């Protein structure tokens, strides 16, 4: 920082011996600077991408440089969920529950083709075609699997996003603002049921009923 070259034009009396050691910044600046450099991801490997995620955290790629090496095994201590791999219908209720258990502010990074949109397994009967059908995703990292460099780029993109946020407008500090909210946990019926879609399912059921009675 260039603090040493700038003198303070302020009414506040600052003793001479600390003048050289004082930094002035905005609340947003310091808040986002701290947050973006200590993103704690959740220990949460789903599939192949998890192996590259481990490589990213290991010595050669060294995620610690970004303050992100502190992988937490509990959602309560995590800021970031890296959805690293194929999301299956059997797994998605657990993933949504984990997301709901993370405290605000929380971010979701979708890693790899499967989490982004189903990837090579999209047509499968047990696969969810993208985690963004259930969770709000902040950053998508393409690749199958993305290389550690690509994941680091995705994480730096997330840092940029965080630095652009303002403490006055982020939803989790709004008095009456809309929270990013709790996502209803999908249930497993004859197929995966998104509880936000119950009305659509009922409409479709009526249509198929009509077709069968007409026939």
């Amino acid at each position: 920082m260039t603090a040493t070259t700038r003198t303070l034009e302020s009414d506040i009396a600052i003793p001479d011996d600390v003048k050289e050691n004082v930094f002035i910044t905005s609340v947003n600046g310091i808040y986002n600077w701290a947050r973006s450099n200590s993103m704690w991801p959740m220990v949460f490997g789903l599939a192949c991408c998890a192996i590259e995620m481990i490589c990213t955290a290991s010595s050669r790629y060294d995620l610690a440089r970004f303050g992100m090496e502190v992988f937490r095994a509990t959602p309560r201590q995590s800021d970031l969920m890296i959805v690293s791999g194929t999301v299956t219908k059997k797994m998605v209720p657990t993933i949504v529950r984990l997301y709901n258990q993370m405290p605000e502010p929380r971010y979701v990074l979708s890693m790899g083709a499967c989490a982004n949109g189903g990837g090579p397994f999209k047509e499968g009967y047990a696969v969810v075609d993208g985690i963004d059908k259930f969770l709000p995703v902040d950053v998508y990292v393409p690749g199958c699997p993305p290389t550690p460099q690509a994941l680091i780029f995705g994480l730096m993109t997330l840092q940029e996003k965080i630095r652009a946020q303002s403490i006055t407008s982020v939803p989790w500090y709004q008095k009456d603002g809309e929270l990013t909210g709790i996502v209803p946990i999908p249930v497993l019926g004859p197929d995966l049921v998104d509880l936000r879609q119950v009305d659509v399912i009922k409409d479709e059921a009526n249509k198929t009923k009509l077709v069968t009675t007409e026939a």
Partner: protein
Amino acid sequence: MVEILDAPEEQTLTTPDEAIAALKTQFPGITDDPRDGHEALMVDSADLLSVAAALKNDLGFEYLSSVTGVDLIKDDKLEVVYHVYSIEAGGGPVTLKVQVPRDDSASVPSLTPMWRGADFQEREAWDLYGIKFDGHPDLRRILMWEEFVGHPMRKDWKEAFYEEDHKPFGSRWPGGDVVRMEELNPFGKNVRYPDGWTPTGNEYDVETNMYGMIQKASDEIPGLKTDKVTVNIGPQHPSTHGVFRMVVTLDGETVVALKPVMGYLHRNHEKIGERNTFIQNIPYTDRLDYLSSMCNNHSYVMAIEKLLGTPVPERAEWIRILMAELTRIVNHAWALGFFINDIGALQTPMLMLYIERELVLDFFEAVSGARMMCNYMRFGGVAYDLPEHVRGQEIYSFLDTLVNERIPAGMDDFLALIDKNEIANARMRGVGILSREDAINTSMAGPMLRASGVNYDVRRAEPYSYYDQLDFDIPVYSEGDLWARYKVRIDEIYESLKICRQVLGYLKATKGAPYQPEGKQQYNIRAPKAGDVYSRAENPKGELGFYCKVNAKATNLDRYHIRAPSFINLTTLEQMSIGHKVADLVAVLGSIDIVLGEVDR
């Protein structure tokens, strides 16, 4: 402590052909598979148990490698295919097939009383094909959830995004007026519900079911107020090596019962694989055991080469062996790292061999273009020849350094830290014991089998590629505990290095020789004739088998089944963990070395 197992004296071993002849004399009801290109014995479902007993007890075919279902929709039948091998005699399988009508009454006697290794595989056949196995102790769905409707691998079961029976889809090629079924789906998701179905609020709820299993049972000791508690571990848990779940009943800290729950990474490899053209399946095999993609490629292309009768040039075979053995080294390096991690040495041992793994991955990237998902082998060869340089170094000098210096030095460091370590030894010795008989009976494979004193390795028992021309040993330990599995993997790394050194010589000698069949590469291959084949290879995790069945002139497989070693090796998890503490349970799971992509497929 490597046991030299002498060949049994004077005992004549039954070859598969002799066994088939003996079975035919003993059971007149047995016939040959009448279909063109299919080799098997057709057994009536009423005879199955006695045929299997004769095969196992009298003829010495005691290793049930694979059990799988097949949907013969044209004949309106369901089929169960069994592949049984002889551990002592080696060689090929005796294949049994049982056909039953394709309706709700479809049932076959369960082989679990004879082979516990059939347990998970029969549950899978029930789940995906709806074949009932009479006498199975716990016939529940294994990969899908209980409320799921239908048996998805049946040919008439179509997915929500279903377009056509085989690729490339007509709307994409050659016309190009792309219509994607996903865009027409009313829910905007990969879901489809039975006609007229509406949610009632009583659907299968994971949470209720998960915690419903947690029950307290009072202990019987009078005067002591103790309870047994059921604890759920996974599917999101750092020590389950992926999305695996164990429901464990504990008495204090001692495991008294365990139920593995899987299917959290069921990606429908088989259903998608039966729609893909032959070559489109190669990248999918990468994603089975995603730590050993080269070995998966190898096993799959061998199966299709058997079906198509494709010859492989010499240089391609040497390249394949080099790739397979380097994969074995990095797989074991990670398996050991994670295992030592599980017994308490957090991360350091894992990172010790990490940079050597990265060097191998750099080599794979230089060769194939990808670090992990190599998609490198092709029918009749490999996709590219070795490049000139890796990391700026001449390729053979890079490989020489890697094989002769870097990996041995890394192993020395690793062993100096772990091998004589008192804590590691205390945690490993005498824990998770699996006897020789149980290992064979439960269809264990790979290091699990060899750590229980069974000298069986597909590279020796039924040699493929050029393994019969190479000088290497099969490490066998008779202890059957965690330590034995650890030692088998350590020794296998050294044996693989030995193979790599020999192969490097052959590779230098065959520089410039063809690595693919002559002529233009065919991408959309048609099978010349109908047939089925079961091809297996010794993967780092164990025996990886592909059962492939094809119709004449088809461009895709009629049946594509993967015999996954990680999946079947989990059969003994409960047996090995009972009586040990929770901490040991984690170590036992680590010693099996599972990869969920292969467990759930």
